[in-house]
């Protein structure tokens, strides 16, 4: 993956050989066929074996018994000095052989998948092709939950849907405008508490003198969250990348702590119970969203699709192009007459409003307390955006599906206390092998390639850190 790749032209062999060449600095530069026995004994290959054996030992410890602090190393030792270890070592060696002889396998894999990839790729390239593909995805999204258990449907709303919407909003800030926001969950909180304020007399000590249907709170929360975004952004957006990150992180913590501390206003840690569910009483239609998750899912799906379409248009509009200009080279953008500060504020406000919107949905669906708005939640949304592929609308939604799907899947697979060990390992592995995210945006990728090649300075988020070029 080093150096600019020609799009659409896989070059698997060359990347293996360059890596080999680099890892064995004193070794021969000549590329040997990788199946050659001498190839297996080369320092680079032996190091690979070492790494895999270490990983095998680590896997044994991770899946091994639980220890305690009286005997800190006993649990680790027990998992290694166990007959099970043979299995892990065998797996490590087999994996090593696969990796070592992988050249052929990869060619085979490429050959086998070509017949599938070609038509899909071609369809995607054709005019109207993306629409067909997107419709197919939409159909999957509509049908899939019906096949799930109710618990999975519940998670499709609470975990996947809400986070997909949040990630779409944050994507405007991070992906389009190139600003890092680590306190994004604060706007979600503002939306949720606004809902409690306007729709219920009992949920919080502080409430409006009248009650509204949650549907009417959507526009209010949207505006309030956008306003909060502007209030936060106006003084801070002059700060550069990482300073902005810490200020937004502080803002997120402040909102979280205020919500938790202000017992007389937000009911503090006890949370807001009794926000009414969404309901429609219009033109003879009477429908109330209740406890069942599926109706919420379809409402969320509709909102997500609308937001995706709207943001797609936004990205291609004059504003979207200005954002691209800002994140690629802010000074040049400013010099050519782009109102950088105002556009950054706009990105902040739009991102915040989506988060506030999601907050209304969440609050009207279920009970919440300040725990839902922790710093970790903010980090998690950033993780979803990067994991999916920043700047790509489909990407961040896929990121939410995969990451949250993973937490749900691991729920039954491993002990709950160990769940996040596996979760963390998957994230690191994914970033090692696919740092650009699952479905990267093409424009973003091109910017990164350009900055690598030294053409233009990509923004604070996209550029590789100093010293990246070995």
């Amino acid at each position: 993956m080093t150096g600019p790749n020609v799009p659409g032209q896989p070059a698997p062999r060359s990347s293996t050989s360059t890596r080999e060449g680099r890892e064995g600095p004193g070794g021969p530069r000549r590329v040997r066929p990788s199946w050659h026995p001498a190839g297996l004994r080369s320092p680079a290959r032996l190091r690979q074996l070492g790494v895999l054996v270490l990983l095998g030992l680590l896997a044994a410890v991770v899946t091994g018994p639980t220890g305690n602090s009286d005997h800190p190393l006993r649990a680790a030792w027990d998992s290694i000095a166990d007959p099970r270890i043979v299995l892990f070592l065998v797996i490590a060696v087999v994996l090593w052989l696969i990796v070592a002889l992988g050249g052929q396998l990869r060619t085979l894999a490429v050959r086998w998948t070509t017949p599938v990839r070609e038509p899909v790729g071609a369809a995607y390239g054709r005019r109207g092709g993306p629409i067909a593909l997107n419709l197919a995805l939409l159909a999957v999204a509509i049908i899939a939950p019906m096949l799930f258990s109710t618990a999975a449907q519940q998670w499709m709303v609470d975990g996947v849907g809400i986070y997909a919407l949040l990630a779409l909003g944050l994507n405007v800030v991070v992906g389009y405008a190139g600003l890092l926001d680590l306190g994004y969950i604060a706007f979600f909180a503002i939306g949720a508490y606004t809902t409690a304020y306007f729709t219920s007399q009992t949920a919080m000590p502080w409430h409006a003198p009248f009650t509204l249907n949650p549907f009417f709170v959507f526009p209010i929360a949207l505006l309030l969250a956008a306003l909060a975004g502007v209030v936060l952004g106006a003084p801070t957006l002059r700060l550069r990348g990482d300073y902005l990150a810490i200020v937004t992180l502080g803002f997120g913590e402040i909102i979280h702590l205020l919500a938790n501390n202000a017992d007389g206003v937000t009911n503090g840690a006890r949370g807001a119970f009794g926000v009414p569910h969404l309901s429609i009483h219009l033109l003879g239609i009477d429908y109330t969203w209740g406890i069942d998750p599926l109706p919420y899912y379809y409402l969320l799906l509709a909102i997500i699709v609308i937001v995706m379409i709207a943001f797609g248009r936004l990205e291609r509009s004059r504003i979207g192009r200005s954002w691209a200009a800002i994140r690629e080279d802010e000074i040049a953008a400013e010099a050519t007459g782009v109102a950088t500060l105002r556009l950054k504020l706009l990105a902040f406000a739009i991102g915040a409003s989506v988060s506030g919107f999601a907050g209304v949905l969440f609050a009207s669906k279920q009970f919440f307390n300040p725990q839902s708005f922790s710093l970790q939640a903010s980090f998690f949304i950033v993780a979803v955006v990067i994991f999916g592929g920043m700047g790509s609308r489909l990407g961040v939604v896929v990121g939410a599906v995969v990451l949250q799907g993973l937490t749900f899947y691991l729920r039954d697979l491993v002990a709950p206390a160990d769940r996040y060990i596996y979760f963390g390992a998957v994230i690191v592995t994914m970033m090692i092998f696919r740092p650009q995210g699952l479905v990267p945006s093409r424009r973003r990728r091109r910017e990164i390639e350009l900055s690598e090649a030294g053409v233009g300075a990509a923004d604070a988020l996209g550029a590789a850190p100093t010293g990246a070029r070995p």
Partner: protein
Amino acid sequence: MGRRPILGAIALATAVTLSAAACGSSGDDTSSSGKKTITIGFQGVLSGDNQQLGLNALYGVKTAIAEVNADASYPFELKLVESDDAGSPDQGPTAAQKLIDNKKVVAVVGPMFSGATKASEPAYSQAGLLSVSPSATNPALTTLGFTSFYRVIAPDTVQGKAAADYLADVLKAKKVYSLDDKSEYGTGLSGALEPELKAKGIEVIHDGINPTKDYQSEATKIIAAKPDVLYYSGYYAELALLTKALKDKGFTGKIASGDGSNDPQYVAQAGATAAEGVYLTCPCGDANSDPKAAAFVESFKKVNNGAKPGTYSGEAYDATKALATVFKQLGDDVNRESVLKAFPGVNYAGITKTVSFESNGEVKGSNVYVYQVKNGAITVLGNIADLIKA
């Protein structure tokens, strides 16, 4: 290169959704011993910062199950399904739904935290699945209209009232520093305690501090206020650090706390010297004089690889045993409906209290005991109601 990612993503998404769809447990209804199997669920804090509390309760449930399964007088074997809600309202509904979806589950021990309870309980009520919480103490829980919620722990108001009585009448405090940990449990308890104290004409200084490890400046603040008693509403891990900081700085007042701190780990973490003399109130039974409690500790250690019972272990154990008693009474007719109907009538003499219920799901007649750390061990001083009279 340009097109592959989409395909990969679709494949991944499909894999995840399919595996999510394929979830579902399989098991047979009869065990090896030929007895029929009854499945119960456990919903609690099994991941995140508070998971030790969840494990305490889970181990209590497992101890009860092991005892029931080894006891021939029960005509069934119990099986456990665990569901983690991380103690947060976000994950509550999914965790509850997971147990509701499993048709074999006839009753649930949990949820543990009040926040997760408020988020989960609507689903339990709708499904008609009984849930017995070992630890959710928010007084409001039994007034929110949940039809399948019971708890084997007294609400904060009971403990707050008793603790106020004890501080006022036995410790003769004139000035109390009430500190809570800003958690749902802590604010609930301090919110119940403070009005009671004020009603007795005691000067109350309120402060709240989020769980941390650094209590240095808070200790300075407390010492400067010169209270007779510091009452901490929170968990033992933080109280241990607070005690150490206070003792290092030479605090001479008395220290008291609630059931969240009534855990042998408190003494272990604070050190026996620092913890000496600290008062702990708890709406749970007298664990020392009761031979059943000693047997519980033994069997707990045996079942859980030497782990010792902690906060909420006893309550979870009692809840499970009470369920088993109801199953036994019901005989062959054990299903969600019959269990939900029969459970309010249960009368089971447990180790923390006798489990029987008011009509609203509140446990009956809770006595609040006070304990004190003496020579590095938490020892009972007696029932607060009796101590006041004496």
